């Protein structure tokens, strides 16, 4: 009950310096100056290196609330991405090839996410006693969640003798290079098969 009141009456904390400055410039800050503010998240920082997608990704990697370990794993994965890409960069002879190799781990992470995001998702729809898996439009949040989930699961599925950050790094690098992970491949196979099955007119 108390959390409901807090949720209705208090505003979210704004911890990014640029956001605060823009709110002061535009005058939006007047609306929230005299409103109580919720407590800040543990992972909210005004650091210039803070990225919201990485924050979300770290939360998905986390198990049993061990955020410290999750953050270390993601940071090590980023480090490994850099080492992989720099090895390729220094190994490339052409200046053109060198220019095409992306060495920024954050950029690779964003590219991997956009490449892994599905456009549609399957929902079970029951008609005439038969449950059909029908592709339906997907919200951006759900797509982003599925992309992150698939990347992490694909990384965990790999060889058990290799540590998770290394597997995750390779998964992100492959996804950024558009070598899609198995789950998305499976989904795209299902979508390809759809026209061959019975066409359904569904009232959704």
């Amino acid at each position, binding site marked *: 009950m108390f959390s409901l009141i807090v949720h209705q009456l208090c505003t979210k904390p704004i911890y990014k310096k640029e956001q605060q400055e823009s709110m002061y410039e535009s005058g939006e800050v007047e609306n929230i100056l005299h409103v109580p503010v919720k407590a800040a998240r543990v992972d909210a920082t005004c650091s*210039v*290196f803070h990225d919201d997608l990485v924050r979300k990704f770290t939360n998905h990697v986390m198990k049993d609330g061990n955020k410290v370990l999750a953050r270390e794993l993601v940071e090590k994965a980023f480090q490994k991405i850099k080492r992989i890409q720099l*090895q390729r960069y220094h190994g490339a002879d052409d200046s053109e090839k060198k220019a095409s190799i992306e060495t*920024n781990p*954050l*950029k690779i992470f964003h590219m991997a996410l956009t490449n892994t995001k599905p456009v549609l998702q399957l929902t079970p729809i029951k008609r005439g006693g038969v449950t059909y898996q029908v592709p339906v439009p997907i919200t951006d949040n759900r797509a982003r969640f599925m992309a992150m989930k698939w990347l992490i699961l694909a990384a965990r599925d790999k060889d058990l003798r290799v540590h998770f950050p290394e597997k995750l790094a390779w998964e992100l690098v492959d996804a950024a290079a558009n070598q899609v992970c198995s789950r998305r491949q499976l989904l795209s196979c299902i979508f390809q098969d759809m026209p061959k099955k019975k066409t359904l007119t569904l009232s959704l």
Partner: protein
Amino acid sequence: MVYRLCKILTLDSIFRGVSSVSHHQRALSVVAGASEILPVGEKQIRRFRTVESNPVKHDHNHAYKFYTIPLETKKQLFQHGGLPTFFEQQTQTFMETCIMIRDPALEILHYLKTADYTRPAIRYVMYGENGCGKSLTLAHILHYGLASGFLLIHVPWVPNWMRACKEVSNSATREGCVDLNLDAAAWLVHFKSQNAAILNTIDLRMSKEYVWSKREVTKEGAPLMELVELGISRVKYASECVIALIKEIKAHSTQGRCKTLVAINGFNAFFHPKTRVMTEAKVKVPPSKITLTEAFVEITKYDWCNGAVVLTVDKSGIAPDRRESCLPVYQLGKEGFEHLDPFVPICVRDYNDKELESCLDYYIDRRWLQNEKSCTEEGRNELKFLCGMNPYRLMHICAPL
């Protein structure tokens, strides 16, 4: 200025790192926004790098700059240890081995150049908090030793023997003592790789005969390398070989046939009673009962000349009960201090402002700092704040960026 030159380049190509652009044009354009990206032009490269790769010529003009260790020298010196593990990984990623020329190293190099080698060997003890750069300073001094023609006696990390030894066996010659034969043989391989070149030029011979068994004898007048080879091949006698070798080198140095540089990392581990070396009966063995200790305690005395002893005292290499202070007196204990007294203490401190700037420039140059924000003044200030000027912490904070 350089900024305007690079507005010609597209934003995309800049963030991908255009390597075809030469040093003159390698600068990042101004990004729309509050924070400015600082250019890394030619002047800045001169600011954090020096071309001088011979440590004999290093002086205060080269202070806070990175110098490159040639690949062959690195193989010769550090193939079997000497550089910290994470630093090794960095050298693989950066495609070069670069060490910063810092004040403690310059101080010790000055002392080594100006010392009177007819007097007893001076002991220099480096101390400092974790991650301040003791191991890398020792590596720099070792490179100087090689370049100046010193014979090198280098122990990369003593706690490897005291806390992670490979094999323990009872000593055949000394009662109650314990041999770490595999470690001793590994050290002899390390000694050989570092000193093979110099021992070919200087002819050092054994001063007396050593009888190992009925059939194995090292005769008087045999070359020193024969003793090293024997220790490597006959692992059973490796520890005794090490002791014999060190005593021979000490004698040769005093007689002026060669000059010796002793470099030991983590010397306090020889005097801390808690080790992880256990006999078959699961009884812990103190360092005083390990044969290898005798060799290196022998060489760090002051009863010989024509040599220098550079030691490091590190609190991370010993049991957790002695980690309150990093100072030499506390770390060496009563026994260690009485053995080493008098010595020259040299403090290895955290980075100062210039060193930190130099380090960040180097990381940007090597493409280690990839995040665009890390090139901006805000980003650099944040990194400076987060690492607390500690080199190790800076290296690890910059790792995911």
